[in-house]
C-alpha cells in the first residue's frame, strides 16, 4: 500500500489499543510502552529495507504512484529516508524514556497510540510526492501533537497551551490549504513533480508570489518562524517531557523541511524572492529566540526558546540554497535533534524528581543527581558549540556555507547569535551544576536506571558525532543532494509519460 515502514507504523498504531486493552485486563501497565518501542524497532528495520531499495533505484528515487499527475503519489529519495530514520530513532528514545516517566499517568494506551501516530505522520510528510498527500499526513501529525500537548488535562497549563497551539496551528494548516487551492487553480494538479514542471514558466506572475507568501506563513507557523512562534514556548513547557523532546527535536524541523521541499520544487522560478525572505526571517528567528531565552527562569521555556534560535540557524542554512548550506542544515537538524532530546529528557528527569520547573528552585540539582547532571552538562556544552562536541561542526558549517553563498551580513549576524547563546547556556550550567543545592533540590532522589539508558546513548552520540563527524556529514550531504536534484525528482514520475 504505502511503503513498508509507513505501513508498519500505521498498522501498529491501530493495533495499540487492542494490545493496551489486553494488557490492562491482565494488569501489566508497562506493556503498551514496550509494544510501542518494539513497533518503532520494526519500523526501523523496514526503513533499512527501503534504504537498500532507494540505494539501487534509478536516480535514488522509489515511487509509489497512481495515475500521475492526478493521482496520489509517494516519492522516497535519500532525503526522505534520512529524515524518517531520524524521526524513528528520536521517537524510540522518547518512547523508551516514557515507559518509566509516564508510569504514574493514566491513559497510557492512548498516549502510545498517539505517539506512533505522530511518528507515522512525520514519516508520511517526508515521503509524500503530492501536495495533498503531504497535507493528509500533515493533519495526522498536527492532530496527534495537539492531543499530546494537552495530555495531562487535569492541570490548567496543558489545556491552555494546547488550545493556543491548536488555534494557531490549525490556522496555519488552513493557510496551506488556501495556497494549495491557488496552485491547483494555476496548474490543475497538485503533484509536486507536475507543479515543478508547470510553474517553471511562471517567473513574473503576481499570484505566484501571493501563493508563496501563504505557503511561507502556513508552514512557518509549524516551523516557529519568529512572528508566528508564540505557541512554541507554551506548548513545549506544558507537554510531558518526552513529548517536548519530540516536538522540539523533530516535529518543528519537519515544518522547516516540508517548507524547503515545497519551496525548492514548486517555487523554483521565484527563488530569489523566497531566498531573501527566508534569510531575513531566519535572522529574526535567531534574535527572537536568543534574546527571549536570556530572560527565562523556567527550565523548559528556556530550552524552548533555544529551539527557536536553532531553527533560525537551520532556516538560514536552507536560505543559502547551496549544496553546502543544505548539508549543514540537515547535519544541524540531526545534531539538534540529538542534543535537544538529551536536554529535554534530562530536564524531564529533574522535573520528575523535584516537581518544579523553576530554575531558582532547581539550583544545584546536578550535585544531587550527578549522573543526569553530567549528561545535562554534555548536552549544554554541545549545543553551545564547543569544539569537541557535535554542535560545533554543524554550526560552523552553516556559517561557512553562508559566507560561501556571499551572504556575509547574515553570516555575521548568525555568528553573533551563536556567541550570544553561549551566555544563557553557561548560566544554565552554572545554575544546574555549580551552585549550592536548594531545599527543593536536596529532596530529590536519583533518576531510575531505565530513564538513564536513553540519556546515556544520546550523550554518547553527542560525543561520538563530535569526534567522528565524517559519516554523518556524508549522509547529510547525500540527503542535500537528493533535495536539490529537482529534475530527477520530476523525471521519476513524469519521465514515463
Amino acid at each position, binding site marked *: 500500500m504505502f511503503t513498508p515502514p509507513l505501513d508498519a507504523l500505521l498498522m501498529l498504531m491501530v493495533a495499540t489499543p487492542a494490545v493496551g486493552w489486553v494488557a490492562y485486563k491482565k494488569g501489566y501497565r508497562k506493556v503498551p510502552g514496550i509494544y510501542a518501542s518494539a513497533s518503532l524497532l520494526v519500523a526501523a528495520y523496514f526503513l533499512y529495507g527501503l534504504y537498500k531499495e532507494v540505494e539501487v533505484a534509478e536516480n535514488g528515487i522509489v515511487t509509489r504512484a497512481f495515475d500521475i499527475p*492526478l493521482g496520489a503519489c509517494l516519492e522516497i529519495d535519500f532525503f526522505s529516508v534520512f529524515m524518517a530514520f531520524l524521526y524513528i530513532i528520536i521517537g524510540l528514545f522518547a518512547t523508551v524514556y516514557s515507559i518509566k516517566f509516564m508510569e504514574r499517568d493514566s491513559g497510557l494506551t492512548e498516549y502510545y497510540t498517539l505517539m506512533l501516530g505522530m511518528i507515522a505522520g512525520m514519516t508520511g510528510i517526508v515521503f509524500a510526492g503530492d501536495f*495533498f498527500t503531504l*497535507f*493528509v499526513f500533515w*493533519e495526522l501529525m*498536527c*492532530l496527534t501533537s*495537539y*492531543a499530546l500537548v*494537552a495530555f495531562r*488535562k487535569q492541570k*490548567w*497549563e496543558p*489545556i*491552555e*497551551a*494546547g*488550545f*493556543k497551539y*491548536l*488555534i494557531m496551528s*490549525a*490556522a496555519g*494548516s*488552513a*493557510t496551506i*490549504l*488556501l495556497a*494549495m*487551492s*491557488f496552485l*491547483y*487553480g494555476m496548474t*490543475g*494538479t*497538485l503533484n509536486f513533480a507536475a507543479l515543478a514542471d508547470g510553474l517553471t514558466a511562471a517567473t513574473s506572475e503576481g499570484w505566484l508570489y501571493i501563493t508563496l507568501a501563504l505557503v511561507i506563513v502556513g508552514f512557518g507557523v509549524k516551523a516557529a518562524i519568529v512572528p508566528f512562534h*508564540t505557541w512554541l514556548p*507554551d506548548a513545549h513547557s506544558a507537554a510531558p517531557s518526552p513529548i517536548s523532546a519530540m516536538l522540539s527535536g523533530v516535529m518543528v524541523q519537519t515544518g522547516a523541511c516540508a517548507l524547503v521541499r515545497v519551496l525548492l520544487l514548486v517555487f523554483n522560478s521565484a527563488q530569489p524572492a523566497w531566498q531573501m525572505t527566508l534569510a531575513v526571517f531566519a535572522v529574526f528567528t535567531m534574535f527572537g529566540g536568543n534574546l527571549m531565552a536570556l530572560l527565562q527562569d523556567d527550565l523548559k521555556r528556556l530550552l524552548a526558546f533555544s529551539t527557536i534560535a536553532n531553527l533560525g540557524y537551520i532556516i538560514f542554512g536552507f536560505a543559502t540554497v547551496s549544496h553546502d548550506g543544505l548539508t549543514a542544515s540537515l547535519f544541524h537538524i540531526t545534531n539538534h535533534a540529538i542534543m535537544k532530546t538529551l536536554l529535554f529528557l534530562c530536564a524531564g528527569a529533574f522535573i520528575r524528581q523535584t516537581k518544579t520547573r523553576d530554575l531558582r528552585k532547581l539550583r544545584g540539582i546536578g550535585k544531587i543527581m550527578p549522573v543526569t547532571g553530567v549528561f545535562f552538562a554534555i548536552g549544554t556544552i554541545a549545543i553551545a558549540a564547543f569544539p569537541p562536541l557535535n554542535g560545533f561542526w554543524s554550526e560552523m558549517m552553516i556559517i561557512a556555507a553562508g559566507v560561501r553563498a556571499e551572504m556575509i551580513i547574515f553570516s555575521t549576524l548568525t555568528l553573533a547569535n551563536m556567541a550570544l547563546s553561549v551566555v544563557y547556556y553557561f548560566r544554565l550550567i552554572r545554575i544546574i551544576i555549580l551552585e549550592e543545592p536548594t531545599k527543593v533540590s536536596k529532596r530529590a532522589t536519583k533518576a531510575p536506571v531505565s530513564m538513564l539508558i536513553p540519556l546515556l546513548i544520546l550523550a554518547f552520540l553527542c560525543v561520538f558525532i563530535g569526534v567522528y563527524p565524517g559519516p554523518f556529514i556524508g549522509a547529510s550531504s547525500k540527503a542535500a543532494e537528493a533535495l536539490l536534484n529537482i529534475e530527477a525528482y520530476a523525471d521519476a514520475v513524469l519521465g514515463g509519460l
Partner: protein
Amino acid sequence: MISLNYYIACAVALYIIGMYCLASKRNMIKLVMGIEILVNAAHLSFVAFSAYRSVGYIDPLGHAIVIMSIGFAGCITALALTIVTYAYKHYKTLDVRKLRRLRW
C-alpha cells in the same frame, strides 16, 4: 456564467474574515468557528476552480480534495471542542482573555 474572479475575491474575503475572527473574538467556541471559516474559504476556492476547468464540465480532483478536507476539518473541530470543555471545567468561563495566564 459569472466571472471566476468574484469567487476568488469571496474566498479571500472569507479568509480575512476568519483571521479577524481569530484575532479579535473572546469566546473560545467562536475561535473554533473562525478556524472553520478559514478552512471553508479554501474549500470554496477549490470548488470554484474545479468548476471553471472547462465550460460545461467539472474537474473531479478539486471536489475529491474538498471531500477529504471536510473530514479533517471535522477532526480538528472535535478535538478543539474537547479541549474547550476542559477549559470550561477549569475556569467556568469561555472568555479566552480570562485564561491568558501564559506569558509571551
